[in-house]
């Protein structure tokens, strides 16, 4: 007690120490081991040895370029679709919700309360071959009479969109909610049309939400393997599926770790580029 009185500057470090130590041990150190493992070769039988096996990286790129590109493509499309659904939805709640706002917001996060796998299996049910959705799509001719939705890339992208939509909607809602409504009125008083007021006032002010939402949707989507597994076939396999099966089924740890490192690096680069580009545009606009 007296020791802490004399050394008050220590208090924050004492409070931080256990939590940060835990994160250091089980978040930072594992990343080091991921890199370490990615340069090992061997098998489960003979054991793994560290040999600077850069070959893991080159073969990972060579063998799985398709899955990498597919992951980025699916995640990109799902992010755009989630944005197109979430923006009007959260705009409606933020500007027209009135006293129902919190309740409506509850609807957006409700999917989180159904276990991820169970709600994905529900989509398996909804999109199943004799289901209502497929029958309607067949009737209007969007799907061939013997065509299916399940086991196609459409199903996988639909699943990803649904599962990560709340990550898009929540930050969007926060930024739309914070907009000072009198700014929009001011724009209209100055003879801006509703469209122009939206494009010049509301949209730029909601950009932090758009940036946060797209990142929070894209990142988990690019690493996802559940939707491709449950709603797709091996032809829709994403990089997550490869990493998962290499770690847990094939036990090819070296290459699996290399693939994880590449995924992380690709995502980091994309984030930096994306925030730079949008950030400077925002300055200029």
């Amino acid at each position, binding site marked *: 007690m007296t020791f802490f009185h004399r050394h008050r500057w220590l208090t924050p470090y004492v409070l931080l120490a256990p939590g940060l130590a835990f994160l250091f041990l089980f978040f930072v150190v594992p990343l080091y081991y991921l890199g370490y493992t990615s340069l090992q070769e061997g098998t489960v039988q003979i054991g793994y040895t560290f040999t600077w096996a850069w070959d893991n990286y080159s073969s990972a790129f060579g063998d799985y370029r398709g899955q990498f590109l597919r992951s980025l493509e699916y995640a990109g499309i799902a992010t755009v679709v989630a944005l197109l659904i979430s923006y009007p939805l959260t705009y409606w709640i933020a500007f027209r919700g009135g006293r129902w706002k919190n309740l409506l917001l509850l*609807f957006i996060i409700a999917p989180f309360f159904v276990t991820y796998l169970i709600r994905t299996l529900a989509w398996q049910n909804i999109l199943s071959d004799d289901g209502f959705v497929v029958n309607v799509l067949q009737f209007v001719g969007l799907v061939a009479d013997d065509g299916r939705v399940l086991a196609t890339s459409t199903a996988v992208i639909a699943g990803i969109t649904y599962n990560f939509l709340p990550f898009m909607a929540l930050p969007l809602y926060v930024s739309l909610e914070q907009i000072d409504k009198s700014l929009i009125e001011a724009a209209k008083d100055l*003879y801006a049309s509703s469209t122009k007021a939206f494009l010049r006032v509301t949209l730029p002010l909601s950009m932090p939400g758009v940036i946060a939402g797209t990142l929070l949707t894209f*990142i988990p989507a690019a690493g996802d393997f559940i939707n491709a597994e449950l709603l797709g076939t091996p032809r829709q396999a994403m990089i997550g599926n490869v990493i998962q099966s290499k770690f847990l089924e094939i036990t090819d740890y070296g290459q699996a770790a290399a693939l994880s490192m590449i995924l992380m690096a690709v995502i980091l680069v994309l984030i930096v580029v994306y925030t730079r580009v949008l950030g400077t545009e925002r300055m200029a606009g």
Partner: protein
Amino acid sequence: MTAAAEPQPLPRRRVSPLTRGWAFVRRHTITVFGLLALAYLMLPIVIVIVFSFNDPAGRYNYTWEGFTTEHWTNPFGPPFLGDAVQSSIKVAVIATIVSVVLGTLVALALVRYHFRGRGATNLLIFVPLTAPEIVLGASLLTLFLNLGTALGFWTIVIAHIMFCISFVVVTVRARLVGFDRHVEEAAMDLGANEYVTFFRVTLPLIAPGILAGALLAFSLSIDDFVITSFNSGTTETFPLYVWSQAQRGVPAEVNVIGTMIFVVAIMLMLFNVLFQWRRQPKGA
């Protein structure tokens, strides 16, 4: 300073019926869109609940065969399902308690003290939130593999505490920011020492934030599949059970348990919403 001529008030724009009609359509288009989007969000949830009452003919619970409450009377009937739910709850309880304690301490330090290394601390808290789950799971697995740690219950617990801490810090910190420190000073002026002040004044005031963090941690833990699948060994949690059954057809009891989790979580959230609603001043 007087202007030579007062500026004439600008003529009011005439609003034609066409413009008004268009405005009406637009106003209601977004409402219709919003309701449709909400319906889309609710659709799988409705399916999960409805099919918990289905009486499937075979293993696949996909087509509606008939109404039954059979799965509700014995939800833990299928082999291994009960054990899986039990381990999920155990993991979630331990992970919640530990991550809430560790996370709250970090949040307190971040909000109330100025110290060197704040930037690094924020980074360490923030990065796990943005890393893809598969990388978190895989890297933790490589740690355990290289150290020769046996995978099982405790490696799952460690993994869950790890990804819950950051969420707790963010949640608790958000509630701490508006905290009025004068209340604490008043308590100290009235002769309370630091510990009494903390337990009698500070803790009750930040309790809602801690509770929110705990609820979030618990629901994240009980729902997690990706990170768990990398670090589980032979221990099976509820999501792992669902995954293992997914290829063979998931028993309807899974829908029952999914519905139970959903109802409990929604009730807690509704309670929270109603609580805020009542505290809100009228007209806000």
